[in-house]
């Protein structure tokens, strides 16, 4: 049976039997979670495929391609190769974007200008640059993957790929899959919330498809929580209409709709009465969510003063924690401005100021509230940046082009191993390498997982796994094919699981 119909039917049956599907699911979930192998969900899969270690995910998406080489991937040997050409054997036929393929100075190697320090974690420590002093100090909670890779080398296909599993538009986003599979823990707030954080360098575009539902029913699309105007679209009553007025209106509306139901017995009509009531509750719950007045001074010390300004990355992170507390399962913050083709130091310094303290604060805050253990935090972009320079190269100023073959992503909480690093790059930060630093040959490929590497499909498979979902089983039939987020690929990386 087509899953759309199946789900509609399920809803219909639940309504016919006069049971609130949500009430049942949530209560069961609350009772079962953590005690049983599987937990009941309000979503399509009914029960998680296995015991989930994460109940929710907060995904900090750095749009544009943050430079692993200037933040996370310490390459001391590059210092001595300043301005030397990238050797052919390193590039080994890798395609280069149209922006640097024909530049006059070729592909000159470009060491990071930033000092790296080693911070303690639960292994041998992790090198982090001075761009991220706060995040570095929560290294014991981070699982830093140095060997993420993708095939796409331009933003639109690459970001569409990591978010939907396909470079070409049309597929559901990660968040939509989660909403479809797991449903909601709180019907007074949207299932899947997306925030756009402010940046000084809004160099890249975002698209509805990144949080879109693709061919899934469209109620699984991400809901924008905005810093301008209504935090949720159309949340506020019109001018001259009070909450009391709305109550009166809704009572009248319910009477009208009951009458419609009496005439036509369409169960959908009863469902809509419920949705109107939820909307009414949301009109109270969202402002309560957005009202930071109950937050203590220590919160703002933790996140920084920025968190008082709506729309900053810090404010988004604080909102993310508040959403997580209230049962929103699926939260994604998009921070643009990482596409540093030129003037990388100026741009990345600003970008890191936007995010550094807040990322660390989010981890600490979740931890102090006992929520980190079942909240997965993911940080990363659609690709990394090249170890050769784009444009003029000096020791102090440079740009970097897009680099898909190797970049850094980190995760924390939700059942990932804390305080570890995973995978490594070669001495150029260009290719994924074996533990001893020799580049992998052949290059890792999405179709077969190589230990020590993490294709973006593997990342998504692992995220789903932590949330109790087998990425091979969360499928939806469209045009005759059972689609899934990870296409026909993806491998859960057990080495990252606590």
């Amino acid at each position: 049976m087509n899953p759309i119909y199946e789900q509609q039917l399920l809803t219909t049956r639940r309504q016919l039997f006069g049971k609130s599907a949500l009430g049942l699911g949530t209560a069961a979930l609350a009772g079962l979670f953590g005690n049983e192998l599987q937990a009941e969900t309000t979503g399509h899969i009914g029960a998680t495929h296995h015991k989930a270690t994460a109940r929710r995910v907060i995904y900090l998406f750095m749009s544009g391609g943050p430079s692993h080489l200037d933040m996370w991937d310490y390459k001391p040997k590059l210092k001595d190769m300043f301005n030397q050409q990238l050797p052919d054997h390193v590039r080994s036929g890798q395609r280069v974007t149209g922006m640097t393929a024909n530049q006059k100075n070729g592909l000159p190697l470009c060491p990071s200008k930033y000092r790296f320090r080693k911070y303690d974690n639960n292994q041998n420590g992790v090198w982090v640059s001075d761009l991220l002093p706060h995040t570095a100090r929560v290294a014991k909670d981070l699982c830093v993957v140095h060997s993420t890779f993708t095939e796409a080398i331009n933003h639109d296909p690459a970001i569409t790929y990591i978010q939907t599993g396909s470079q070409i538009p049309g597929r559901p986003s990660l968040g939509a899959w989660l909403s479809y599979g797991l449903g909601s823990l709180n019907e007074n707030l949207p299932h899947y919330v997306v925030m756009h954080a402010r940046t000084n360098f809004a160099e890249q575009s975002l698209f509805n498809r990144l949080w879109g539902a693709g061919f899934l029913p469209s109620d699984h699309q991400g809901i924008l929580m905005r810093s301008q105007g209504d935090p949720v679209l159309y949340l506020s009553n019109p001018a001259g209409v009070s909450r009391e007025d709305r109550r009166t209106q809704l009572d009248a509306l319910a009477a009208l709709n009951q009458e419609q139901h009496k005439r036509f017995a369409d169960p959908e009509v009863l469902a809509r009465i419920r949705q109107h009531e939820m909307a009414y509750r949301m009109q109270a719950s969202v402002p309560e969510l957005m009202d930071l007045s109950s937050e203590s001074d220590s919160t703002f010390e933790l996140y920084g003063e920025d968190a008082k300004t709506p729309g900053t990355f810090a404010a988004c992170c604080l909102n993310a924690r508040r959403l997580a507390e209230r049962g929103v399962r699926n939260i994604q913050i998009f921070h643009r401005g990482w596409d540093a083709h030129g003037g990388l130091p100026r741009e990345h310094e600003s970008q890191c100021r936007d995010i550094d303290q807040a990322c660390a604060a989010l981890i600490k805050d979740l931890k102090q509230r006992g929520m980190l253990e079942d909240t997965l935090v993911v940080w990363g972009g659609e690709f990394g940046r090249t170890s050769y320079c784009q444009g003029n190269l000096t020791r102090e100023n440079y740009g970097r082009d897009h680099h898909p073959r190797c970049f850094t992503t980190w995760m924390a909480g939700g059942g990932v191993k804390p305080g570890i690093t995973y995978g490594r790059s070669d001495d150029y930060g260009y290719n994924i390498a074996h533990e001893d630093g020799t580049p992998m040959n052949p290059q890792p490929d999405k179709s077969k997982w190589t230990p020590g590497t993490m294709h973006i499909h593997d990342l998504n498979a692992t995220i789903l796994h932590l949330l109790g979902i087998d990425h091979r089983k969360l499928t939806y039939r469209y045009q005759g094919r059972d689609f899934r987020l990870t296409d026909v690929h993806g491998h859960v990386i057990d080495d990252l699981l606590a």
Partner: protein
Amino acid sequence: MKPSTLFIIIVLQIPATTCLLADGSDTRPIDFARQILPILSDKCFVCHGPDAAEHGADMRRLDSFEAATAALESGKAIDPDAPQNSLVLNRIHSADDPMPPADSEKQLSAAERTLLSEWIKQGGSYAKHWAFVPPKKTATEFEDGTAAIDSFVQQNITAAGIDFAPEADRSTLARRASLVLTGLPPAPDQLAAFLNSNSDRAYDDYVEQLLASPGFGEHQARYWLDAVRYGDTHGLHLDNKRGIYPYRDWVVLAFNQNLPFDDFITWQLAGDLLPNPTLAQKVATGFVRMNPSTSEGGAIPDEFQAKNNFDRTETIGTVLLGMSFTCARCHTHKYDPILHTEYYQLLAFFNSTAESPMDGNKYEYGPVIKAPTDINGWKQWTQLETQRDELLAKAEQVLPATIAAQWNSSSKEDLLKLATKTDGPFAASDLQSSAAELTQRMDEASANFTTTLVAQELPQPRTTKVLSRGEYNLPIGDTLQPATPAVMGAFPENAPADRLGLAQWLTSPEQPLTSRVLTNRIWQQVFGNGLVRTPEDFGVQGQQPTHPELLDWLSVEFQDSGWNLKHMLRMMLHSRTFKQSSTWRTDVEDPENRLFARSASYRLDAEVLRDIGLWSSNLLDPHMGGEGVKPYQPAGMWLAMAHPASNTKLYERDSGQRLYRRSLYVYWKRTSPHPMMTLFDAPDRETSCVRRSRTNTSLQSLGLLNETQRIEMSRKLAERLLTECDNDSARLNLLYSLLASRNPSPVEQSACENLLTTMKARYAASEKDAAELLATGEASVNSSLNAVEVAAWSQVATTVLASDAAILLY
């Protein structure tokens, strides 16, 4: 009764589908296409299907009789002569070495195992998947199409032990018919005329009025625009503006003119390749250019040449063939018999269009031509073209023999120029002066034409090869010529191997899919659900039609009628099936309405919801066509997502009449369509959509009750009620007559009156609140009316506009 007599009766009663098995038991023969193929496809073809060779050289294929019965070393997968020796039979029952393998995610059910066994015992015969066999009408003669529909539908209804639902009351039927055909409810006078008519032809006349109304084309066009993924922007990366709205206007016009659907398809695929194409035929090829495009810095042209072609090939698959070709992009299709090579042969039809693979972020992403800027412009231009043709026909009759050869080989534009010449062949004749005058009028009309993207062929075609794994940089094998998938019918003899030939193939009677796929979508528009519930997939994995004979009958009828859409709609709207009450039935368990034993009931589309509000409040601007309009939208939505270099980063809201055009004309930015559209399930138009979701969410409630334009509609509707009626009861009647095509029931009346009373008191107590409410939106406030009254009625209007009596089809 003697046993032998009994036997005869059974044989007579059971149709010719009965057979006696060797063991004496009689069983209905298994219908391979309906019962077996779906099992094989879903459970076996993933390894044993068309691409079996990918899974190992000795992998057996089960997708044809020849392959399944081939004698290999291990035996025959299916042995028709000794069924008990069939490997399939053994393996599906084997505990030690089962098929599907124990670790396979897809296992056979007991019922499926029984069916497969029975089928093999009956000889394991194969048949083509139903959708690949050209449709035929059954032998039964029907009085007309309407009778055919009702007869086929009734068969299943009767088999379920019930009858048709009673007919809906006339006002409900009137509203339903009007919404289905035009996307708006009937106007009060139109409704009254229908309800008060005693004529036998009252309903016929009513339906004809609707079919002839300009709103018909606007409403029908929407479905097509979803399918072809029409947008006003390029879609990728910067998502800049694209000049293509004349195409959208042409679609509206084509529906209103009831352009035969085979022409409709042909013009869009290949209007430029027709002899002496008209402007409309060229503009229609905007269809070929509808793929999202990019000009991202660093993007590789070859990569996007491939991606653009994938998109176009797969869109043809979804829109006209009801098939997903996406699998075959990378490898031979696992389920449907489409070869990897065939995908690229189909793609080759599109690989030689002249546009660059990158759009340059340009509005005029060439090739472009100039076309009228709205529907009036189109009508005027079409008239001028007709006049030109008439003039040229006259000229041809008095043509000097010396220029006959030149005449026959010239375009109409050049001929008109020639006729205009004062020293030309018609110098000093009336023809010359008429031609000069016509030329001037045509020049004037075309002076303000606007850009639209069109298809053109390159002088030399590009080379097309199979791409290994669908990777643009891994072409393999020989150069391919354009060709169509073998399983879908022969390419017409003498048809050219170009887009025009493709169109001829798609619309040829031997092509099994196009007509079925389109007919199914027409049915879906009228009855809420298709006869095939997966309108995007008629393949082996898709759902089987609920009424296969009806679908086939209608598909043939569609072709026989000259691909006449209005004929099809007329047939459906006159059927008893359509006229039934939509009340859910308690006498049969059929929540999906697969029997069509009641009429459809569902929430109306985003555009219709907005249009009803604009229309009922008299705000609707009837202007047809033109550049996409930008109604109210929360501030900053585009800026928060757009690239700083994008020319669609700022949403510049329109003012005046442009705020009130039909929603079909709302500007479609593909990476961020209008939020009131996406909130109510409109697709993004980055990919083809032939069936929208119909969701029911709390956020929709917020949109219905709070969005600026809806409040503006409500207060203008309130003004209308207060202006046109002189007491509250009449006002409520008018409100319900506009939105529900009937008067309110006593319960509705009392709910509304209570609300009205409360609101009157409440706004009388705070005139400031009343003034604030009435300041919503740009439309003027009628200051001659009492603000408290308007505010209170406005609240009632908002509520009724959001109620299910107004937002549902039923």
